[in-house]
């Protein structure tokens, strides 16, 4: 049986335009990141420091979340907790209903994608408008992001020009990037002006001061969090850091790893709703903290490292698999290496466990990761959890669900043969002798490759012929 994942991959591999778009973008991003770290020792020092900041925050996670909540509340920001995406959506819905809001304007938020918030609210008759240029483009086309920081990276200029012309026929056709951008500016400005509620994600939450930090270039994040009378922020529970002084190194390595910028245009630190005497900013600020499987990941000392992620996307930009199959092939909110470890843990190995297999384990992802997440080790661990017999011994969702009788039997037979010298020798000698009769069709492997050919004689025979004594 061919899985949905495999079918999508096959379909996307057959789209040369999309593949070319990814190749061009990823090449540029790799070069730009490299340019930002001319001093290798400095990079390694910063990575170690950033890893320590995130590991420290995770080691005190429940306490820091309580401190954060206390400080945000003291500052006048309302904190909500959600165990599941459904609960998160209901919290957002309740806030909107209280304000009788029929629409929201959204800054970029991957957690809202995780919640399926747009669909949920649209079913209630509430318009959700994405205001990040990339998100705006894909929303026009009814798509989801194909990259966590560059959501429309799979489209080229011409495709976007055609899309704009189709959706806004009154505006003259143009392939000029500046003109396309100005069109989006004009359309969205009216929306920022009128929106009753703005929604955003969060990059870092500072427990010490009760501050929400947002990283962005366009200003749509500032607009969404400042112009409407209500601001709702949604984020995962792991995004907290202990102190304000933890933020500068993380910001520095985040923007450089992500897009090769020394810093983004805007770094926005929000600590309170509009105070008495202030003339703008939202009257109400809400924070929704989403668990959605994170506390389960937290329970495993090895998998815990997954939660260090600061969502820079460097692992995605450097992944040889991602660049070929593209972000939509994964069929998940987070694509690429981080998606391949995060999504199976969240949804279960039975649902997305196959993503852990879709890796060459080349290690590029962990080499660039600013917080040193050992992605290949975690991929291996998830592969093991998927097929392990003692599923009860691990908290990973869907453990053992990928175990098949035939695969287990094959390895069991192999282990038995390999630990019985007589059998092993007889087997390898037979295989060498009758190698011409071995099958050339080995399933998926041989659809794109030739089957491996056995040598004229076994290694043992060759060693013996060379006169090397085993003792």
């Amino acid at each position, binding site marked *: 049986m061919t899985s949905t994942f495999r079918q999508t991959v096959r379909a996307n591999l057959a789209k040369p335009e999309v593949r070319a778009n990814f190749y061009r973008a990823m090449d540029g991003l790799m070069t730009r990141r490299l340019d930002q770290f001319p001093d290798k020792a400095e990079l390694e020092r910063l990575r170690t420091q950033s890893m320590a900041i995130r590991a420290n925050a995770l080691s005190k996670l*429940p306490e820091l979340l309580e401190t954060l909540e206390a400080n945000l509340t003291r500052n006048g920001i309302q904190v909500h907790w959600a165990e599941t995406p459904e609960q998160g959506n209901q919290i957002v819905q309740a806030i909107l209903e209280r304000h009788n809001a029929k629409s929201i304007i959204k800054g970029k938020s991957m957690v809202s994608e995780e919640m399926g918030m747009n669909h949920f609210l649209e079913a209630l008759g509430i318009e959700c408008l994405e205001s990040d240029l990339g998100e705006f483009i894909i929303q026009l086309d009814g798509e989801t992001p194909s990259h966590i920081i560059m959501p429309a990276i799979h489209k080229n200029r011409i495709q976007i020009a055609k899309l704009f012309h189709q959706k806004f026929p009154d505006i003259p056709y143009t392939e000029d990037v500046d003109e396309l951008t100005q069109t989006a500016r004009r359309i969205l400005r009216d929306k920022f002006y009128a929106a009753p509620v703005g929604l955003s994600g969060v990059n870092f939450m500072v427990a010490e001061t009760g501050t929400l930090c947002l990283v962005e270039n366009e200003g749509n994040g500032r607009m969404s969090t400042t112009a409407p009378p209500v601001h709702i922020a949604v984020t995962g529970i792991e995004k907290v850091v202990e102190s304000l002084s933890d933020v500068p190194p993380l910001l520095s390595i985040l923007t450089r790893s992500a897009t090769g910028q020394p810093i983004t245009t805007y770094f926005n630190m929000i600590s309170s709703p509009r105070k008495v005497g202030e003339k*703008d900013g939202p009257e109400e600020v809400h924070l929704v903290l989403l668990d959605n499987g994170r*506390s389960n990941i937290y329970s495993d000392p090895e998998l815990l490292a997954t939660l260090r992620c600061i969502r820079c996307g460097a692992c995605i930009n450097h992944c040889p698999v991602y660049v070929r199959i593209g972000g939509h092939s994964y069929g998940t909110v987070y694509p690429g290496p981080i998606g391949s470890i995060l999504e199976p843990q969240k949804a279960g190995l039975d649902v997305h466990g196959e993503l852990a297999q879709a890796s060459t384990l080349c290690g590029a992802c962990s080499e660039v990761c600013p917080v040193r997440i050992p992605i290949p080790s975690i991929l291996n661990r998830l592969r093991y959890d998927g097929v392990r017999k003692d599923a009860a011994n691990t908290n990973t969702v869907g453990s053992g669900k990928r175990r098949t009788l035939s695969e287990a039997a094959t390895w069991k037979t192999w282990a038995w043969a390999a630990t019985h010298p007589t059998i092993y020798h007889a087997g390898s000698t037979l295989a060498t002798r009758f190698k011409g009769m071995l099958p050339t069709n080995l399933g998926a492997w041989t659809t794109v490759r030739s089957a491996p050919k056995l040598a004229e004689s076994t290694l043992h025979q060759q060693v013996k012929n060379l006169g090397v004594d085993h003792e």
Partner: protein
Amino acid sequence: MSNTARANILARLREPQRPDCGFNERDYLSRYDWDTAERVRRFTERMVAVRAEVHHATPETWLDVVSQVCAAKGLSNLLVSPETMLGKQLHAQADRFPALKTYDQPIESWKQELFYGVDAAFTGTYGGIAETGTLIVMPSADEPRLMSLVPPVHIAVLEVDKLYTTFAEAVQAQGWVQAGMPTNALLISGPSKSADIEQTLAYGVHGPKELVVILI
């Protein structure tokens, strides 16, 4: 629902044994040793690289620079606080500038004009960061948040003695934690931009299309 969710999440996070990661010292301060001239040079270089305009001026000449910038850009009006020290000086010589507007009422009562009728805004800054070419802006009742965001041109003054080497240094030297964080604090490094279409940089997406920095 929310309280149960909170209790459940915290209980789950408390259950596993948590490793002590032995991270107590925070030594993030700059390893750079840049003097004022070097900080100004680096700041200017970074700002210009992201298409911001940087002008060097003195306490005697900065008003001339603002006036020239307004003329060069053909601005028909300028939003300036009449309450800040710099704003007062500007208002005192109002005839040298385009029509001066003031943000003297809550946004609700003049949103339409701010969004569609203001050409440019003038603000002070809380400081700057040389390493990244960044302005530190802490909006206030006199200079509200949307001033540095909605008008297409943002003109800002940065006093060179508040130009720090790194972000970490600014946070420490200005005692942000001790002072308590304001409603909104911003780092601004250039005019609004995006590379969402084919990785091609386009300026002026949602925020100001032009950022003018005057160093005093």
